[in-house]
């Protein structure tokens, strides 16, 4: 039996429970991870993932094999939900967008793995949305450049530019503590 994502979507559209379970197994973690890195909040990421899957279930009965590559479509939906949420948060006076961190601990202070993660998360969160999404799609989600560009609706050249600027900014932000982070991380 064809168990490609596209075939599973068709089966999910007619209420096939096992197809729905396989789609959740394959993609829920990826969507939560993408949303977490994009939004910087685990609870927001879970809300987004639930919203994305509600849209997935609603689209399943109308899904046609060959109409779109499933993973590209799914990431695009997730990206749009995340961007909507970010826009709404920015309209509110008190948002919980991750705060910029200090220059970090003194090099002599021991830095634990959780602190490394905190610094890197803050550096990624400080990127402009497009750079953060590009880095997340390519580095963390492992999408090929063509697919990531397709999700974002940009050319491959533009994607490469976003990636390079994003990584450069992260490096600049972590430079004061990079030695300590790498030595102890």
């Amino acid at each position, binding site marked *: 039996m064809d168990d490609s994502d596209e075939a599973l979507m068709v089966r999910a559209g007619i209420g096939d429970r096992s197809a729905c379970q396989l789609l959740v197994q394959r993609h829920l*973690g990826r969507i939560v991870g993408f949303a977490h890195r994009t939004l910087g909040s685990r609870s927001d990421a*879970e809300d987004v993932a*639930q919203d994305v899957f509600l849209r997935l279930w609603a689209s399943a*009965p109308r899904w046609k094999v060959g109409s779109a590559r499933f993973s590209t479509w799914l990431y695009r939906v997730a990206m749009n939900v995340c961007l909507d949420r970010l826009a709404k948060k920015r309209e509110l006076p008190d948002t919980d967008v991750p705060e910029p961190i200090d220059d970090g601990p003194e090099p002599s202070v021991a830095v634990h793995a959780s602190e490394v993660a905190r610094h*890197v998360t803050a550096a990624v969160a400080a990127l402009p949305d497009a750079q953060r999404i590009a880095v997340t799609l390519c*580095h963390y989600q492992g999408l090929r450049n063509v697919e990531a560009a397709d999700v974002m609706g940009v050319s491959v050249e533009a994607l490469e530019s976003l990636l390079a600027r994003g990584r450069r900014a992260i490096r600049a932000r972590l430079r004061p503590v990079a030695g300590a982070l790498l030595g102890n991380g």
Partner: protein
Amino acid sequence: MADYGQTDALARLEHLLAAYGATPARWPTAERDAALRLLERSAAARALRDEAAELDRLLDAVPSDPPSAALARRVLAAAPTRRVARVWRRTLAAAVPLAAAAAVALWLTTREPVPTAPTSLALGEYTSPTDVLLEPYGPDVYATVPSIGCADSVLGCPDVPTAEPYSERRASGRARA
């Protein structure tokens, strides 16, 4: 990546490393082999790669926790069931003919009317074949004069001071013959 000059190749490798990091699997397939060959023969290229690898290590230090079982249950609880899927199909089956009917109705009400000639113009242009046949005899006054005020509206009675109408001329002609 084509094997162009060492400087160009190094610049391109630097751009690849800046965008995609130090792991060759992340690089565009078409450029991977040439980039790996350059790394084998260039110490400068390897220095650039090591720098990119440091940033990769930092990025990879952020763990990605798996989704909770509760979230997976909530997501699955909202998945389509066979009953819901049937409702969807029925809704679609009903909606398609209705949409088609609505589209036809809309088309009928909004289309441009077919241009037609005014009725009076059409009547004025109409020529009966009989008129052509009767033309040599002139107008038939008995047939055209209204019978208003006439006592015998059936036979026609106006005393019209004109030449004998063609019908009577024909009748008298036949009688003479």
